[in-house]
């Protein structure tokens, strides 16, 4: 194996054009290699020490999160917690303190697991992914990123350089919950993210989006019936969200849960995510991560 360490994005792009694969924290790459699932690539370029990739920048248009920003950075960043709360909820659930320090948002996205925790929050927050290779820079909607388990639209020589989150509308809130059997070192049995925007006056719904984790080959968005807009967020509306989420789910059965259970419980998760997003949009203080506040997972 050949190992190089890139100091700049350009160095990383040159190495990738010559066939190297990027490693950020290595928490997916190394574990897969040591378990014998997939050997380490022939040539690796480390991208975790590139200053431009480890930064978060905010301006009036929104936020730019460098691809090598760690989950530990995300879970405590004041702007993420305040405005993009679903992403903080997700980052705070990843693995253990060590996993959160080592694991990066770029690695999470590019690994493209349907059980990844930052995916559904980024979908409901209308995230875009910046991909760069030597000859071009492009941005794509995160909802178009994944094509199957472990598969994305990115070419092998494309480096994910940043995730871009647009400025939030006033009176917006978001949340992410996942079903877990343990409170740490766990992957989502299922998960759901929701983002809610309320009308300027009163608590009527102006916009909503919901996305689901680990119930399909990729993260999926849920189509919420148009009639929901302009209505109060009450039990009836939350029930409809739960039904729509369960209908959207096409889960598999595995050792962690049956398909039937996943399909049902993802509706419950979507309902809770939406109710909390609604509460946050109204200005209620609901602690991060939502899983702990909502008491999900064994004590």
């Amino acid at each position: 194996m050949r190992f190089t360490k890139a100091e700049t994005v350009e160095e990383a792009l040159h190495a990738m054009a010559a066939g190297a694969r990027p490693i950020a924290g290595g928490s997916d790459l190394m574990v897969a290699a040591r378990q014998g699932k997939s050997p380490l690539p022939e040539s690796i370029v480390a991208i975790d020490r590139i200053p431009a990739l480890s930064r978060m920048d905010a301006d009036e248009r929104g936020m730019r999160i460098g691809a090598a920003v760690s989950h530990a950075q995300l879970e405590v960043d004041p702007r993420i917690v305040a405005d993009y709360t679903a992403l903080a909820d997700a980052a705070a659930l990843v693995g253990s303190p060590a996993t959160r320090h080592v694991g990066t948002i770029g690695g999470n996205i590019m690994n493209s697991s349907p059980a990844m925790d930052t995916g559904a929050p980024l979908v409901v927050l209308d995230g875009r992914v910046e991909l760069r290779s030597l000859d071009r820079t492009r941005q794509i909607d995160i909802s178009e990123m994944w094509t199957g388990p472990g598969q994305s639209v990115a070419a092998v020589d494309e480096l994910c350089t940043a995730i871009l989150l647009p400025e939030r509308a006033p009176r917006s809130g978001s949340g992410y919950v996942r079903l877990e059997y343990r409170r740490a070192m766990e992957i989502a049995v299922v998960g759901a993210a929701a983002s809610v925007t309320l009308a300027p006056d009163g608590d009527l719904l102006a916009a909503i989006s919901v996305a689901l984790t680990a119930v399909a080959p990729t993260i999926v968005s849920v189509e919420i019936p148009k009639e929901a807009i302009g209505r109060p967020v009450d039990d009836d509306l939350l029930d409809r969200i739960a039904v729509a989420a369960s209908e959207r789910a096409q889960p598999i059965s595995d050792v962690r849960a049956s398909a039937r259970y996943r399909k049902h419980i993802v509706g419950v998760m979507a309902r809770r995510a939406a109710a909390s997003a609604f509460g946050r949009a109204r200005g209620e203080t609901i602690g991060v991560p939502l899983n702990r506040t909502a008491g999900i997972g064994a004590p």
Partner: protein
Amino acid sequence: MTYILTVNGTDYPVDADVTRNLLSVIREVVGLTGTKEGCDDCECGACMVLLDGRPVNSCSYLAVQAQGCAITTIEGLQSDGDLHPLQRHMLESGAVQCGFCTPGMIVSARALLDANPDPDDEDIRIGLSGNLCRCTGYARIIEAVRKTAAGDSG
């Protein structure tokens, strides 16, 4: 590949295959065996070390990626033969049975206390959530961390 790793403040020249994990290089090349291999699968935390103060499962971390970082292992916690307060409280609280998880527990607890000198029990549980102990039932480990945070000298 040859490179330098800085462990507990000392530079060690390393000549090892680039695919080696940090744990095996610390144990077999550097020669410090306090860091343990429990699962070699990023599950148990026995292999925990600090990289620039942040906890890392060394079994699942590429050794070459740790170049340029200050690596702290369990051996780096004592000073001049005096145990670190965490080590002392772990022993005195009866938080050590077989002892296999202990180095990793202490390293995680050190990272926790550096970041949050006044943790409540929930913070301690979260701070140690990547470390498994098959013997003690955790209560005494949490007590030892609590006593250290309180600056308890007994």
